[in-house]
Structure formats: C-alpha cells, structure tokens
C-alpha cells in the first residue's frame, strides 16, 4: 500500500494545481486519479468521500482532505513551508491570500462567456501589475532576501512563482517593470525541486483548453 498522497481531480490545473506545486516543492511524490466522467464523481459522493460534495480531494495521512486552503495549509505546516512563528505565518497567509485572489481570476477565466473574455483578461493584467506584483516587488526590495518571508522558502514563494508563470502565459511581458520579481523567478526556477517540476513529464498540468472546460462542466453537470 502506497503512503503517497493521492490527488483526486480533473486532469487539469484548476484548484488542484497549487497543491501539485506545493507537494512538488516539498519533494513529496504523489499519485493522481483523474475525473473524466460524471459517474466517477457521483460515486465519490455516494461513497461519502467528499465531505462537502466537492473536489479537490486529497487523501493524505489517513485523512480525506477537502477544501483547497485546508489542504494547502496542512501540507505547508507539515513540510516546514509555513514560517517559524505566528507572525511569519501571518505574512505568509496575507501574501498567499492576495495571490489566491489573482489566481482565482485566472482559474475562472476559461469559464467566462466569450464576450467577457477580453475584459477579464485586461482585468487580470491590471490587477497583477497594479495591485499584486508591486507588493511582492516591494517586499523583496525592502529586505533584499531571496524569499518573501523569514529568509527561507515558504508557501508564499511557491504560490508567487505559480501565479507569475500563469500571468505570463496570458501577458508575456508582465514582469517588465518588476526587476526583483524577474530575479525571484529565475532563482525559484533553479531550485532543484521546482526545476524538476517545470520539466516535461512532471505532474504539472498544461493551461486549460476547451476539452478541460467541457470535462469540468460535464462532470459537475453545470450549465
């Protein structure tokens, strides 16, 4: 029997991608089960595996964990990615929550109606460049350290890396005005565990396409 965590989700990024990033950065191998059909999903619900009838679901340490933030907090706490005290954790939480707000816009983007897509894309770029990236640029500049909090890698750094790459996929030149973030991105890319995750063949998922969107809608039976 494998002790590895087991991720149950669609075969795509969505809300599970942050979990994949965090586990990969912590060098934790994991298995994945992909939801392709509504039947699989209904069975999970009937089996009582989904506490609130929703995925992501991560089987880890004898628990069937749901709720993305709960899962991420647990992994961060377990693998020493959550700072060394309450105040460091407070800053990590603030940074992660801000990043999550931006990630949420990106996550929902493929599901927005065609006529709203241009506006939503502009909003993602606007928020990234005016609300979120300046905060992290400033934090890195002020303390001059390699990582956002406490001079060691944390959940916040990994989420920031994830969101930078995600925004760059939509707006390639987005980091032009952010030299600290450019250097941060290079540094993070070269960390062995992250370097491995960024290579082909890793569990990292590609950007969502039409097939991903239609699978999600079909499995969740949403109109």
């Amino acid at each position, binding site marked *: 029997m494998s002790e590895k965590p087991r991720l149950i989700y669609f075969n795509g990024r969505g809300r599970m991608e942050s979990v994949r990033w965090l586990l990969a950065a912590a060098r934790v191998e994991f298995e994945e089960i992909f939801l392709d059909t509504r039947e699989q999903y209904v069975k999970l619900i009937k089996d009582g595996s989904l*506490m*609130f*009838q929703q995925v992501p679901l991560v089987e880890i*340490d004898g*628990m069937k*964990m*749901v*709720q*993305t*933030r*709960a899962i991420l*907090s*647990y992994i961060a*706490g*377990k693998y020493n990615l959550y700072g060394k005290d*309450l*105040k460091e*954790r*407070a800053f990590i*939480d*603030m940074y*992660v*929550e*801000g990043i999550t*707000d931006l990630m949420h816009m990106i996550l929902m983007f493929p599901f927005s109606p065609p006529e709203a897509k241009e506006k939503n894309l502009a909003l993602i770029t606007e928020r990234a460049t005016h*609300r*979120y990236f300046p*905060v992290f640029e400033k934090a890195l500049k002020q303390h001059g350290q390699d990582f956002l909090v406490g001079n060691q890698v944390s959940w916040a750094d990994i989420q920031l890396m994830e969101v930078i790459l995600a925004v760059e996929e939509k707006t390639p030149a987005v980091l032009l005005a952010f030299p600290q973030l450019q250097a941060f991105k290079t540094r993070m890319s070269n960390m062995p565990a992250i370097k491995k995750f960024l290579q082909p063949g890793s569990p990292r998922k590609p950007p969502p396409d039409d097939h991903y969107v239609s699978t999600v809608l079909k499995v969740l039976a949403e109109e």
Partner: protein
Amino acid sequence: MSGKPKLHYFNGRGRMESIRWLLAAAGVEFDECFLETRDDLLKLQKSGALLFQQVPMVEIDGMKMVQTRAIGNYIAAKYNLYGKDLKERALIDMYVEAIIDLDELLMMYALQPADKKEQYLANIVDKATNRYFPVYEKVLKDQGQDFLVGNQLSRADVQLLEALLMAEEYKSDILAKFPLLQSFKARISNVPTIKKFLQPGSQRKPPLQEKDLPKVMKIFNLGH
C-alpha cells in the same frame, strides 16, 4: 495608546463580522474605525495602510493585517482556538472553509436583483440543509462531544454558531431537522464570552438593511 486591535471596515457585518466573533469569543476587546464614504476608503488606500487596497484591515500586534482568512488564522492561533496539533488544525480548516463558502452565499443575497432573490434564497436553503448542516450534525453525533474538534472550543465552533444564527435570519426553522445543531447552538451561545457578544450593546452588527445597501455599494464602488 491602546493595545487593543483596531478594525477598519464599514459599520456592518460583511467580511469583518467573523473577525468580530472570533475576537469576542477569545475575550479580546477591540476598537472599530468605520468607513462611511468612498472617500474614507480612498484615504485609507492612499495612506498605504491596505496591502492590497482592500478592507477588512485589522491593526494588531504592530501589523496592519488584511485578508480575512489571514486575520482569522492569526487570531485563532494566538488565542488558542486552532486545535492542539496539525491534524486538529486540518479538521478545523476544512470545517471553517465550508462555513466561509456558506457565509459567502448568505452575504451575496443582498446584492441579488429583486426578481432573482426568491430563487437565490431557495438555493441558500438547499445548500445549507443538504450540503453543509448534515456534515456538522454528523460530526456532533459521531463524537458525542460538546465541540466540533478536539473536545475544546475552537474557531470552527464559533464560526459555525455565527453561520447557524445568520441562516436562521433567512429561514427561522432552517434547523428543524438538525437536533444536534440546535443543542450545539444553545450550548455555544452560553459560553460566557459569546453570551456577552450576543447581548444588545455588543459590537455584533445587525443584518444589512435594504436602505443601507446603496451606501455600502458606494463605498466599495459596486454595482455597474
């Protein structure tokens, strides 16, 4: 100079109410600074006090904390409302995250157009009684303890009580099928700090009135 936490928000529940509940349950006195106009918010943004230009913001222990979950996490951990180990924290987090989802549903009701309100309310009641409440009813039943996690009061209990009372404001008999949630509600309401918070004159805020909605929309520049 007061060492008390200082809450910056508009004079209403919104996203700050769960913070008020937590501080109150922990027996921590706090001050409040209310945003009355859009200018108040703009001023706060210009001052650099809001990390991501948003409220809630809570001045606490020398930090200007933003992001509701971050603030809630800090208060819960500081005042021993977050369980005793990582696994209890995991359970508390799962329970609290779902309650936050339900709170979001409840909060958004006021923003629905008039012709959509009835259908929206039906959805709230459906989710509450079929997705969320059964989980907590079962936890209480399976464990036979007074609290949701670890046999002591935690943030999960406080946030659940808040959600139960709010849900009852939408449908007074919404707990009819949940006897253990009813006794939980009575029990947690009697925790001395919470009992005090539930009395008139406390810093608990009333539900948003229709007439106050335009003011709130203006402060946050909502509604186009």
